[in-house]
């Protein structure tokens, strides 16, 4: 009798990263830093919108981050780090010319083929804009492949708004129907105030065949899904992007396991109908 591992190769060291050089880096809010990176060996970095990487600094560790740029951009990719802990602080201390380690792309992104030819609605709350930006930019770069494109973005305050250059473009873009809101306005805020679901009143013609992406704080999901239910959008056409602590990113360490799924391998993008009954998912 042979053990199952003898039939295979011995695998590889799944923890060996590749090096990426930071092309540019800037703080885009008080706590978020935006990086543009290039693989050091000049290798191409192909990925699907919605996939993640383990980004790290030796001596500190690694954290999972959603890719924030579109795979249509070939020579570089973008990440956003929110400074909360040891690793994110170390990453945020890096600047242009520095090196960070990358493992990935990991997991399953948005099933782009299911979105093609369809209307698309993306609902992004707070830092949820970062991973969905890979899809937003992808759609804008391949605009003819998709139907009507609607984007809802909500932030806690105007100061928490990410990618303000993008937002400026999107506000006056004819390629998309963009709506935004903040929970707490400041003196200069002229736009919508309220939770993200208030934006559903701002737009008409979201047809039941629309493919939807939701990404944001966990509390947001069930309220947004309620609105989608009312619009007659089947939950099998709704995709969510989940966040968990991940140590390995390849389904071994167990940290991101919910029921029989691991967020790193089966996700981070899940069809809502597949996880709506999984306790601990949302």
């Amino acid at each position, binding site marked *: 009798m042979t053990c*199952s591992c003898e039939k295979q190769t011995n695998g590889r060291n799944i*923890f060996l990263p590749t090096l990426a050089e930071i092309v540019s880096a800037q703080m885009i809010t008080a706590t978020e830093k935006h990086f543009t990176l290039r693989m050091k060996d000049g290798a191409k970095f192909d990925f699907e919108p919605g996939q993640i990487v383990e980004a790290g600094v030796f001596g*500190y560790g690694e954290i999972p981050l959603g890719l924030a740029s579109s795979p249509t951009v070939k020579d570089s990719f973008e990440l956003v780090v929110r400074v909360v802990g040891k690793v994110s602080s170390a990453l945020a201390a890096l600047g242009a010319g520095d090196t960070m380690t990358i493992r990935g792309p990991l997991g399953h992104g948005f099933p782009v083929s299911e979105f093609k030819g369809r209307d698309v609605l993306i609902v992004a709350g707070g830092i949820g804009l970062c991973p969905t930006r890979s899809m937003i930019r992808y759609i804008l770069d391949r605009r003819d492949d998709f139907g009507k494109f609607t984007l809802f973005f909500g932030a806690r305050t105007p100061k928490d708004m990410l990618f303000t250059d993008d937002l400026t473009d999107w506000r006056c873009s004819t390629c998309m129907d963009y709506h935004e809101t903040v929970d707490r306005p400041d003196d200069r805020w002229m736009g919508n105030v309220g939770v993200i679901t208030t934006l559903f009143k701002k737009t008409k013609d979201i047809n039941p065949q629309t493919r939807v992406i939701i990404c944001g704080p966990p509390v947001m999901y069930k309220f947004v899904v309620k609105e989608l239910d009312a619009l007659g959008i089947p939950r099998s056409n709704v995709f969510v992007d989940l966040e968990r602590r991940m140590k390995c990113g390849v389904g071994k360490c167990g940290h991101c396991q919910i029921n029989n799924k691991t967020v790193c391998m089966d996700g981070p993008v899940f069809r809502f109908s597949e996880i709506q009954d999984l306790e601990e998912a949302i």
Partner: protein
Amino acid sequence: MTTRFLSDGALKQFVQALMAKGPVIGPVARKSRFVFAALEAPEDLRLDYDTTILPPKKLFFPTKQDLVKFDSPSSFSGCVEPKEQVLLGVHPHDIKGIDMSDKFYAANIPDSNYLAHRAKTTIIGSNVQKHYKHAFFGSVCRELKPQGHDMFLTRLKGGYLVEVRSKKGEELLALGKFEPASREQAAEAEAVNAAAEKNCPEKLNDTSDSVREKVRASFGSDIWNELSRDCFSCGSCNIVCPTCFCFDVQDEWNLDGVSGVRSRCWDACLVSEFSEVSVQGGSENFREERAERYRHRFMRKAVYLNDALGGPACVGCGRCSGACTADIANPTVAINTIMER
């Protein structure tokens, strides 16, 4: 399949011959318990052990294992340096546990940090001569037969019946004075192993399939609060389990502040920091209550991994029952209670 007989005297000589070739890891006494450790003398080998504190997976998946050494932010290398070793005296249900970790680490994206060590290990199993007080391997995971071993020893009068289970095992025959085995001896060995399964001190009352269904259906039940009331969330049940594979990864610097090592360490889903979402001690934890973490372990053992592993992720060794000072981890108690409701 080749069958042989190895007398007690010949076993000692065989072990000595194995030790001459490289490290031989077997059950040895530690105070009132046993552990798998490198033999210093053939006499240290205690094939009459009941169970070991930790399961043998530690030989391929050490409790702390270096993964990547780094000299600077951009200079690093892997740490996989497997060495030939012989693992001697593994009970059949522990071999099933190894089979499961083999499957787990080889699945999807195979992990050389485990598999390379595993491939260099020769495994010689042995029958259960004495039951651990909490063993219930006779009534769980019966759908799987032990696979990944090279030779198996069953205690008979005056020596051992030797069953060769692989080519690697066949080659071992050259190292000892193996005698022909009679048909009666082979039959006796079969009876000895069947009796070991039958005579386990504890047992699950239901089949894996019915357990899986009922335990899954009880996800929202109050029973988890009840069963986990005395749980310390200490993680002992995880750490001693042959089918717990979870780990944490941490970096450590050397004093120079530049070089260091990234390593993994056995982790436990029972402890609260395991399910924290981002920062340590932060506000988000997706299994915040001890009952939720207690439940997760049983779900993982009885439900979540069954398809991936080919059976429940529990081989009935009883280590968790013995390791739990609050006496609430015992699967035969918890699962039989759930099944009776």
